[in-house]
């Protein structure tokens, strides 16, 4: 996907992406310079991490494509692009979803939270603090997804048990397999028990 910076958009390119407080009208679709086949596009309004965007999206774009390639939010990762690994987990109106398995056009009017939106006013979310403290990320590639699924869990269940944490997070793979430290970190962030790690009970 050819990435267009906000600046270039404002200067008048054809792909419409803009982030402003007052939402401007979508620019009329200009004819692209090349003879690229015309791909159906739809204008959507989407709020990402508290910022409103009006975006002219190709109907075939997934949400994660929109976030990564067009809104420059690369913190959300793609691990499989087929709904198996959870690396792309984001919150859509507070619900954790695999953003590889959602089309961007479906997101019209929705609010998205990504890993970039976890820290508030320069202060890390307690989950982020606990992830650092307990060495939850090894390679770190699944970490954004693990953070978002944990965030969704703690919003619903502030004091989960270890097994509740493991169950909630089981759709989020970590091939470094640092599952013990992830569970330990979420338990610590929730403040529910001393950190004893994850795992099947003996």
């Amino acid at each position: 996907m050819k990435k267009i910076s906000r600046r270039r958009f404002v200067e008048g390119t054809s792909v419409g992406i803009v982030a402003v407080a007052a939402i401007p009208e979508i620019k009329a679709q200009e004819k692209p310079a090349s003879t690229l086949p015309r791909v159906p596009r739809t204008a959507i309004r989407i709020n990402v991490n508290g910022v409103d965007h009006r975006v002219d999206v190709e109907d075939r774009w997934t949400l994660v494509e929109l976030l990564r390639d067009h809104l420059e939010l690369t913190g959300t990762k793609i691990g499989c692009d087929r709904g198996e690994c959870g690396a792309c987990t984001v919150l859509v109106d507070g619900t954790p979803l695999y953003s590889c398995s959602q089309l961007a056009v479906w997101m019209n009017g929705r609010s998205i939270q990504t890993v970039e939106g976890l820290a508030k006013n320069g202060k890390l979310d307690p989950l982020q603090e606990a992830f650092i403290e307990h060495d939850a990320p090894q390679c770190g590639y699944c970490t954004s997804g693990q953070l978002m699924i944990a965030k969704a869990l703690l919003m619903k269940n502030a004091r989960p048990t270890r097994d509740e944490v493991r169950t909630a997070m089981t759709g989020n793979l970590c091939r470094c397999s640092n599952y013990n430290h992830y569970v330990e970190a979420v338990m610590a962030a929730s403040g529910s028990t001393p950190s004893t790690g994850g795992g099947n009970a003996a």
Partner: protein
Amino acid sequence: MTPLKTVGHATHRIDALQRVTGGAKYTSDVHLPGMLYARVLRSPHPHARIRKIDLSKAMALPGVKAILTHENCDTTWSSGDQLGQRRLFNNPVRFAGDPVAAIAAVDRHVAEDATHLIEVDYEVLPFLTDLEEALKPGAVAIHEGGNLSLNNQRQPAPQTYKRGNVADGLKAADRVFEDNFTSAHHNNAQLEMRVSVAEWSGDKLTVHAATQGIANCRTDIARDLKISEDNVRVISEYMGGGFGNKNQCQDSDLMAAMLAKQAGAPVKLEFTRKEDFVAVHGRWSSRQSYKVGVKNDGTLTAIQMTALTGAGAYRKGSCDLSGTEIYQVPNLETSVSPVYTNTAVAANYRAPAYPQSVFGIESLMDDVAYALKMDPMEFRLKNMTRKFRDQTPYTSIGLEDCIRKGAEKFEWKKRWNPVPGSGAGPVKRGAGMAMGMFGSGLGRSSAVVRLDGQGQYYVHVGVTDVGTAAKTTMGLIAAEELGIPLEKVKVVWGDTDTCPYSVGESGSRTTVQTGMAVIEAVRDLKKQIAEKGAPKGNEILTAMATTNPPQLQGQSRNSFAAHFAEVEVNVETGHAIVTRFVSAHDSGRVVNPLTAQSQVQGGASQGIGMALHEELLYDKRSGLPLNAGYYGARIMTHLDAPLVDVVWVETDEPYGPFGAKTLGEPTIIPTVAAVANAIYNAIGRRVKSLPITRDKILGVLA
């Protein structure tokens, strides 16, 4: 062992903040102006000759900028096959997934659309998926010279090792045991898929690669593209896991570079998850046959192993098996024959030659112990290695302590059933153990250390940090040697333009080898400071070191481990779960107990997946992979992972940085066998084939 100020204390990763905020820039996050996207078209057939490729429709698709096939690109991918038999695009294609074309286009959708417009006329050839079938007379030859690959001396013979005389040893035995074990091909399955971004500026090529070794990657790219190494820059600042399948350079690096050259624009080439499963590589499968001779008092007299290993369609890895070295035995013969089939390529995955092989030998030794009515732990304490290959003393060995302290933590005596399978059921509990070892050789690496006039220290190391916390480890080692806090050290990594050569992050070598280079560079810097005084203002002091490690004549340097597993097996459903796990490790001094614990727990968890459910399956009739992906190959999840208790046995090791030995790979070596032995202890029947799935458990119980 003398406590140290910085090394040996639990320390957060120096890049942890980037990893939890989305700020860490991985290769797939790189976006260059005017960048094209590339996709690969792959063979749908396990074995076929390409008669003709028609690109006309694909080239006519607006937005398509460049296409490579075997017709316009005959580049050899040298790290894709140790014998030089593999090009980027091969004809014939030798497995379902062998690349046929690579397309660069203005966006990834157009590139993908173009793959469907390429018309390939294939002459479908007979194919092989089975190791024994491949060696039968008359089997279709996948490579010239047949399907038995060359040994590591490039001779048409098995890889062998011999000491003593096995025939004599078996004659001297009171009892002889024979058995066969098999293991499956299973995938590294790291979360970050293969991705490369290549950009040319005149003659200078920059590749953003997802690599475990920027220096090796650069060397490989330069060799294969026949350009000067000075003209290649490799950048890998954050890397999303590899466990051995991102060693050296990847075909995607070369394809991206060549597409970028042809298109005159930067190119990002991304593999899909399915491609990562079938077209990169996984651990080689094996068929192992053993004979073991033993005295009635439990003393081993002979071990003989003959094995076939599954190389897949090319020879990317050693395809060796190394489990028998954990036993002291006067007579040992091993013979390993790597075999080609028309399946996914096999190569390095965390301790490549070990866990499948340790599964075989440790399963059999368990049976021997039970047959002799010995506690398997006592049997191992009696027969464990004491000298490397029974002759060379180890620089340090904590294997006995790993067994004893691990057993104590695990409560072996309480959890192990003297009568296997004696539980009431239907859920039966059992305990098993196994041991392992791994080489921890000294070797050459480099580092640069700087001190500026503001008192800031910089450590330049060519690491990418594959998840092991290598950046932090290098910082800790420098800080310790300098006698300053870690915060005063800035680590510079991940770019061949700013970092000296570092041994690749494979073979669990970085801590030991690049760590020693950091120490030597710091010593030089301290000497300079003593001679010239600390730099002021714009002054700067720079020290560099390329280590020339001592030859360990008459000594062997190894890490050791013992793992303990408790399982629950439902004998009605065949469902097995690991309920308790202890990993005891001698890796010398532990540089960072926090991140080292992550390594050990993660390695054990990967091993449990390998033991119980992970494998890549092929349909024998079509030669096609059946389950390429996370769900299908049943990769470990949060719910599969038990709590892993870690026991450190910190031996006083005279060599290496502050006495550190290798850690990353040993963490998976005994795991698989420990789980297998626990299942035997629970149900009283032995499953001899990995993974130990429910159907196999029910099968042995039937």
